[in-house]
């Protein structure tokens, strides 16, 4: 089993007096793919933002490679962690290449201009995300799928050990969503970058993830093998609703199918 990369212990976080996360503990191992699911408002985004130190937490500890987060400067932290925020209508006055190059920030010293290795990292990130043809395009001219790819490219050029993603496929059509899923799988398997990805797509969370972390009301409901998520009424308890299951025609794994809504009475 791989070494522990990130350990979250007894995390407590409140924002504006409202408790968001409480007594939350889990670990992420090197090069593992951990899917993060849970109802709206369970604290998934806040958890990612605590790990990236975008929002402060008030209790518990997060440690990266056995050292508490407080021991890292933000710049050093960014050499290990990278974050792709929820896609929103964000205006960026840059070209794709400029933005991806900005991912090299934690590896640059002040005043220095990009070196060969920085250019190579950018090039390979562009290539891997298939955004190389878009390199000179302005950000606001991109489609939603292209923007998401460019955001992932920027996070990749940072060369992190753990990539945090917040609902990377929520607003994408099935084809683009699948592209992102393939890409994430490739990043995980070929580059050995660990992934912690928030999603509402339970099927894909289970199919893609080595393990699945389920949050409910700010705490851990489940953290374990992806295979057991669809069993024992776990999802029903998590989402307070019933689910219909079937078997995947190719793999035989249990998956969810949409419920049929009857309009009776």
């Amino acid at each position, binding site marked *: 089993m791989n070494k522990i990369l990130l350990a979250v212990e007894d995390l407590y976080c409140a924002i504006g007096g409202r408790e968001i996360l409480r007594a939350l503990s889990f670990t992420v191992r090197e090069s593992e793919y951990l899917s993060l699911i849970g109802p709206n408002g369970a604290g998934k985004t806040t958890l990612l933002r605590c790990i990236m130190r*975008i929002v402060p937490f008030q209790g518990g500890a997060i440690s990266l490679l056995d050292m508490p987060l407080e021991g890292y400067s*933000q*710049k050093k932290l960014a050499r290990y962690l990278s974050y792709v*925020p929820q896609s929103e209508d964000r205006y*960026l006055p840059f070209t794709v290449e400029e*933005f991806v190059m*900005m991912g090299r920030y*934690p590896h640059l010293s002040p005043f220095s201009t990009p070196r060969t290795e920085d250019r190579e990292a950018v090039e390979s990130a562009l290539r891997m995300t298939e955004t190389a043809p878009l390199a000179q395009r302005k950000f606001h001219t991109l489609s939603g799928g292209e923007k998401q790819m460019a955001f992932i490219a920027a996070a990749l050029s940072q060369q992190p050990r753990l990539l945090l993603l917040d609902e990377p496929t929520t607003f994408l059509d099935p084809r683009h969503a699948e592209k992102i899923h393939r890409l994430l799988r490739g990043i995980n398997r070929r580059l050995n970058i660990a992934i912690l990805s928030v999603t509402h797509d339970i099927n894909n969370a289970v199919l893609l993830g080595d393990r699945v972390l389920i949050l409910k009301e700010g705490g851990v409901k489940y953290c374990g093998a992806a295979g057991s998520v669809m069993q024992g009424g776990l999802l029903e308890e998590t989402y307070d609703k019933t689910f219909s299951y079937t078997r995947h025609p190719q793999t035989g794994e249990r998956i969810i199918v949409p419920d049929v809504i009857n309009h009776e009475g």
Partner: protein
Amino acid sequence: MKGNKVILVTALALISLSVVVWAPFVGMEKISPGAVLRGQVDEIKADIFWRIRIPRVTAAFCAGAALALSGMAFQAMFRNPLATPFTLGVSSGAAFGATLYLVTGMGFSLLFISGQSLSALAWAVISILLVYGLTRARKGFSTATMLIAGVAVNFFFSSVILFMQYISDFTNSFRIIRWLMGGFEIAGFRSVFSLLPFVLIGGIIVFAHVNELNLMTAGEDIALSRGVNVKRTRTLLFFATSMMVGGVVSLCGPIAFIGMMAPHICRLIVGSNHRYLSPASFIFGGAFLVFCDTWSRTLIAPAEIPVGVITSLLGGPFFLGLLLSGLSEYSFLKNRG
């Protein structure tokens, strides 16, 4: 692509510098460049040229460059093209500091930096914190909250300045009024030297943060996840802009809108990458103010129009244009803070 930008910045710099070189030869007293070079000008003209016009142009250049650079830093930090030290009331804070010093007649100075500049600097810092606090009090940034906070701070300081002017004697009162309009007619080399440390220190801090400014334009969360120490960067940049605005305002009054127009025009020409935008704004802002100042002393010569009046006349419509074009909404603002 990158080469293009270098060429663009260089071209902009050359045009700007030619304005600066041309400016001291223009005025009531015609002075020809050839004559100055050959040393064939009479004593009076030589005095006008070397002891009045050259320092005046230098001061105007430094002031314009500093204001443009401050405006650019504000636009990036507040993620809004309408955010500048002037529109957000930082200039009036600095003006209040300078007026307070004038009226109370304290007489301190630190090394060779005048007490008036230091007082302006201190109040610039205070008003930045005020505006920033007011903007952040409501979650996230919105153009409305930000501009209203700026207007509030502006009004507050302006009325205190008016009050101080009202209670001071006639001479002081006139001095305050004239100074509030903004101008360089007092500029000699001494004032250039007193301005220089503010512009240099502030400028160096801004130039050292081009990467951080880029990332902060993308959003605080992106900046943090790329490793920018946002708090420290913001503190440093607020300090740097306070230095520049405080220094400029105490010397030549709150000259309006340069900090909004110059960086924005440069953005249209060289793009938003601060690696190119910073030098462009610095040089273009300087030249732009030199240009306005040259107008100010020649349009109705021998009388002068205060340069602040000219920049306001240009800046007002520009500001409205930006507001109406929807560019301010369309740009940085839809992000969360």
